[in-house]
């Protein structure tokens, strides 16, 4: 099913713009009268994903699609990739630089928190190429897999 679509771009190191996409998505979801707890789950996850591109990759693209059933987000970046995804998903695992830590991140809590807040999460990565994260949050009781 096709719904409302949004596209955003991100640049590695550009912390000032991390959160812009999440902010616009939050406004849109509010206008659509989505429950505030659901909105929070979406934007917290998307924000952590935005920060990951800015903190760990070179550049990235975010695609968001909102349908009556769900919010479907794909964050694809060009970057160093993740060598061991299972390890990266562990709470506390981080390769973040001091700069990232000074921004209030880099505690290895982003990916686990995205997992916690979404109904579906998939991470694919190729070392030296980039990483793609897909996140889905259901707006109906049962999320129909496509």
């Amino acid at each position, binding site marked *: 099913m096709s719904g409302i679509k949004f596209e955003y771009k991100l640049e590695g190191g550009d*912390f000032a713009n991390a959160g812009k996409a999440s902010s616009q998505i939050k406004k849109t979801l509010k206008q659509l009268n989505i429950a*505030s707890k659901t909105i929070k789950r979406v934007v*917290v996850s998307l924000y*952590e994903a935005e920060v990951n591109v800015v903190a760990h990759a070179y550049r990235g693209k975010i695609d968001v699609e909102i349908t009556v059933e769900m919010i479907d987000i794909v964050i694809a970046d060009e970057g160093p990739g993740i060598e061991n995804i299972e390890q990266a998903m562990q709470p506390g695992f981080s390769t973040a630089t001091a700069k990232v830590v000074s*921004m*209030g*991140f880099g505690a290895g809590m982003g990916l686990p928190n995205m997992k916690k807040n979404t109904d579906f999460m998939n991470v694919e990565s190729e070392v030296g190429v980039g990483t793609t994260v897909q996140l889905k949050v259901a707006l109906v009781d049962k999320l129909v897999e496509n």
Partner: protein
Amino acid sequence: MTLKEIANVLNAKVVVDGFFDKKAVVTAVASDLMSDVLTLDEEPDILITGLTNLQSIRTAEFADIPIVVVARGKKLTPEFISLAKETELCLLTTDFSVFKSSGVLYKNGVKEIY
């Protein structure tokens, strides 16, 4: 406590008088780690922080925290202030440390969320 009373006991300046529709301030968290704030299942009324980059405003926005108190008398950039305005947050600055701000609020009845 009301927002005004909060500002009083913290000897704080209200930099942005944003949107706060609750009758009273009841709960707060103190953190410089935004990732940690983003894991909270509940929504405290206040975030007390020493972090003065845009991430603390963004975090409050996404974690649904209406009031940000920047401690230690840190200087704020115009971008920081305008982002707070844009997101309709209440932004306060105090010379008190994060520890002292937390202690003073706690003494005045503001509670932890966990």
